[in-house]
């Protein structure tokens, strides 16, 4: 790679597991994408760099930051179709489409994520039990590949590459533009009902009953109090219409401040969980939530992640098949009681979809755990890894940067097929990230 000193920038993954100087270029013109790719051997594309794991970073590749590719290229209200460039942020898309009562329902919890990134990770949101992952809304992709040039991908054109690209972690090339099929959304807010639960087994009961209802469901549970492990709330959101308009989602504020030490420990987690529990408990059983706070729960709560300090955090996200949920949760509780890991967040939601290649998708319950990044928690998660193999649970490689190749290969049964297809498409394996190096993709 032609390494010009003047484009070296220090970047880190969102979970801070990776931090290094990388060679970064910010193309603004179509010919710059072509030119920058020509100049270098290995490339990886970066959207907003909000990936927990270092999916868009590598010390050995040129990082192509496509933030400036954020334009609306085509919109047809009647056909309910929109084409946007890959660097377009979710909020930019919504601020436009919601004017026409249209949206894509598979929205991850943070609006500043780029759509190219969302497609490359096959993102999902709180409503994944209802709407599945973003793959369901993708109609076409325009990809740029150093060797193959400009490629149109869809179910009808280059289908194999289309399949590899969605959830393909950016390893097939740069997603320059995406055409989405939009869905009607005539509502303006959400009615959120809460239900208090006293243990983790309550989740199974409630989720089994609620799955049949067509609503967004998720939970917030505490894992810091071993006597009341799993107590918390289940939330059920239904969209509603009122006379107000959905207010525009504002651009993200630049906040580069990092808390120097980790605020989260046994005592602070317990105390904050207790306070948060009390706050939620004191709220009405039914509340009206604005569009932004219901769909993007992390907006305004960014400091939660900053409080993990410079060492960052670990997020483990798992899809547990329904048949194994009971047994898995019993084991999880057992391990938690023995190891007492520092879990700051435990949350459940339902997810639907067919797992293929290396996509984080499947039918079951999606469990999210946020943990302080320390050795004790790493050991705890190694036990969870073993449970994943035993119960055929799918761990997210997008969220958990700690996962080993061995666990990945055992849990993702089509990993080898992905490798083979990718190699067939790209013999030189041009597009490489830290994650692709680790998993030998």
């Amino acid at each position: 790679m032609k390494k010009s000193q003047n484009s070296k920038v220090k970047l880190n993954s969102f979970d801070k597991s990776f931090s290094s100087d990388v060679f970064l270029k910010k193309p603004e013109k179509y010919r710059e994408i072509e030119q920058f790719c020509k100049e270098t051997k290995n490339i990886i594309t970066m959207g907003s760099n909000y990936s927990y794991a270092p999916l868009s970073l590598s010390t050995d590749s040129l990082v192509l930051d496509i933030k400036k590719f954020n334009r609306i290229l085509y919109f047809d209200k009647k056909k309910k179709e929109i084409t946007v460039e890959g660097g377009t942020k979710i909020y930019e898309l919504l601020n436009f489409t919601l004017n026409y009562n249209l949206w894509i329902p598979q929205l991850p919890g943070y609006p500043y994520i780029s759509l190219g990134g969302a497609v490359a990770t096959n993102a999902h949101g709180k409503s994944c039990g209802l709407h599945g992952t973003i793959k369901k809304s993708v109609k076409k992709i325009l990809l740029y590949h150093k060797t193959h040039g400009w490629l149109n991908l869809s179910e009808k054109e280059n289908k194999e590459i289309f399949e590899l690209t969605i959830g393909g972690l950016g390893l097939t090339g740069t997603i320059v533009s995406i055409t989405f099929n939009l869905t009607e959304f005539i509502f303006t807010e959400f009615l959120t009902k809460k239900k208090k639960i006293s243990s983790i087994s309550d989740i199974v009961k409630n989720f089994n009953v609620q799955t049949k209802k067509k609503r967004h469901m998720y939970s917030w549970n505490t894992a810091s109090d071993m006597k009341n492990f799993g107590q918390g709330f289940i939330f059920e959101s239904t969209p509603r219409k009122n006379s107000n308009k959905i207010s525009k989602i504002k651009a993200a504020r630049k906040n580069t401040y990092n808390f120097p030490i980790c605020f989260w420990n046994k005592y602070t987690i317990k105390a904050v969980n207790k306070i948060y529990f009390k706050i939620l408990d004191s709220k009405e059983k039914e509340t009206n939530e604005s569009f932004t706070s219901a769909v993007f729960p992390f907006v305004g709560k960014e400091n939660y992640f900053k409080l993990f300090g410079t060492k960052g955090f670990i997020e483990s996200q798992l899809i547990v098949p329904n048949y194994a949920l009971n047994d898995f949760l019993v084991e999880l509780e057992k391990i938690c009681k023995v190891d007492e890991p520092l879990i700051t967040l435990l949350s459940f939601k339902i997810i639907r979809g067919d797992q293929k290649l290396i996509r984080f998708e499947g039918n079951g319950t999606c469990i999210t755990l946020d943990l302080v990044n320390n050795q004790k928690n790493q050991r705890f998660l190694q036990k969870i890894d073993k449970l994943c193999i035993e119960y055929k649970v799918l761990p997210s490689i997008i969220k958990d940067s700690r996962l080993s190749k061995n666990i990945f290969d055992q849990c993702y049964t089509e990993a080898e097929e992905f490798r083979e297809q990718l190699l067939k498409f790209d013999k030189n394996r041009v597009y490489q990230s830290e994650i692709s190096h680790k998993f030998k993709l």
Partner: protein
Amino acid sequence: MNYLIVGASSGLGRELCYTFAKNNNDLIICSRDLRDLNALKSDIEKKFNVEVETIVADLTSKENVKKTLMNKNMFKKIDGILFPVGLMFEKDKVNLDIEKIDKLIRANFSSIALITSTFLSYKKKGLIVGFGSVSGYLGRELNTYYAASKRALESYFESIGFENKKNDIKIQFYTLGYIDTNLSFGKKLILPKGSTQKLSKLVYKNKNKKLKKYFFPNWWVPIIFFLKILPLSFLVNFNIFKK
């Protein structure tokens, strides 16, 4: 109103397009690559409900400029021209290849002068905005022809300002320091960069002023003042601008 923006596809040019479109102005956008222009046109039209026309032109070629931009009908319908355009080569030194020298002078000065003069031959009313560089204030070991052509451009804008003092022609000339574009990205600079967004708002705000020269960011004013009063023999020992 209708404005021609030459060099619209990136950096300051792109930002100016959004600022002018946001304020309900139709645009004619000009750049070298139709793909960039089409993307910008589509985005602006959808977001701001204004009309955008595109012109593919290469300012480094006199023939191309004549063919694509010397259009009487276009000049008649526009109310102003903005030139957020600049061409730089990495090894721009005294012994630069003659073809590259020619390209630099055309893109940074003579094509702008040609377009402006043609516009002025059709219109006695309108806005013309040029963008220079602080590097034009002091020749140094690099950016030789870039700096020279930017200095020539400034002089040209002063002249058209004087020549048109009786007409309703508004002339603005911005001398730019470091701004947050791809040209300055990743470079170790001695001073902070100015925001292209702020600059484009400033250009729009000042669009009705008769004749105005600005420095942006304005902390360059005292620096340029000292550069002007210090003897050249003293300055040659210091690498004042790192670009």
